[in-house]
């Protein structure tokens, strides 16, 4: 397969100990791209959450199933896609962690954090198997849309 110069791909087995490997690479890429420390921290966390979800909920800890991570460094944005090889799920059917009935649930906050820290997060079913989450973080964020408003709230 031929890759463009601005693409970095990594495939790991579904084992939690590999998450640190992915986030270390994430830190290197965000530094290379020039994100500030704060943005880099939260991108790291969004990637951590997405890979953890792929291992836990997608591949259900089956170490024979891979998780594919792809970083695409664009002129305007960093795009990260994470694919698992599980049975897939309907992201719209997940419980809202901010619903008062769910506030004290021990799990279910990862995707909310991803949506808060990235400018866009989209889940799609892979045509063959599994889910693909695509996350984008703009390199020069605008101050007007919802994603940035949420992140401004975090910073203040």
């Amino acid at each position, binding site marked *: 397969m031929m890759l463009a110069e601005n693409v970095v791909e990594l495939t790991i087995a579904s084992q*939690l*100990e590999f*998450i640190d490997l992915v986030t270390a690479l994430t830190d290197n890429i965000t530094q290379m791209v020039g994100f500030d420390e704060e943005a880099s*921290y939260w991108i790291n*966390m969004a990637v*951590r*959450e997405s890979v*953890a979800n792929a291992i*836990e909920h997608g591949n259900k800890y089956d170490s024979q199933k891979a998780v594919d991570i792809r970083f695409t460094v664009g002129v305007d944005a960093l795009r990260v896609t994470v694919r698992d090889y599980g049975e897939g799920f309907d992201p719209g059917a997940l419980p809202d*962690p*901010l619903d008062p009935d769910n*506030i*004290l*649930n*021990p*799990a*279910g*906050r*990862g995707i*909310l*954090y991803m949506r*808060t820290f990235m400018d866009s997060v989209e889940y799609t079913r892979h045509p063959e198997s599994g889910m693909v989450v695509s996350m984008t973080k703009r390199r020069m964020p605008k101050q007007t849309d919802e994603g940035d408003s*949420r992140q401004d*709230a*975090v910073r203040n």
Partner: protein
Amino acid sequence: MQLEIRERTVGDVVILELHGRITIGEGSVQLRDAVSNLLNAGRNRIVLLLEGVTYVDSSGIGELVSRYTTTKNMGGQLKLLRLPKKIKDLLMITKLLTVFEIYEDEETALASFK
């Protein structure tokens, strides 16, 4: 560095000093075990000192919530002391800041149990 937990007691309150990361896997499990051991020994007035925590993910936040509800359900209290800003941010995003009792100084945290 994964999670290191040091325990000390002031009166009938146990302070768990957490250092390192509370993340999916080991860190979350260590915290769960440490609090469970206290509860099983009947020590249910607990403060988690968090200033040494360098990283928490959603699993770690979930573990804090889980330890809080378990302690409460067993008639005890679990309070948080000296939260790093990033943990505070994560609690705020998920509307958990008002769920926990959070203190900045140890004396006030200890006095709150009386």
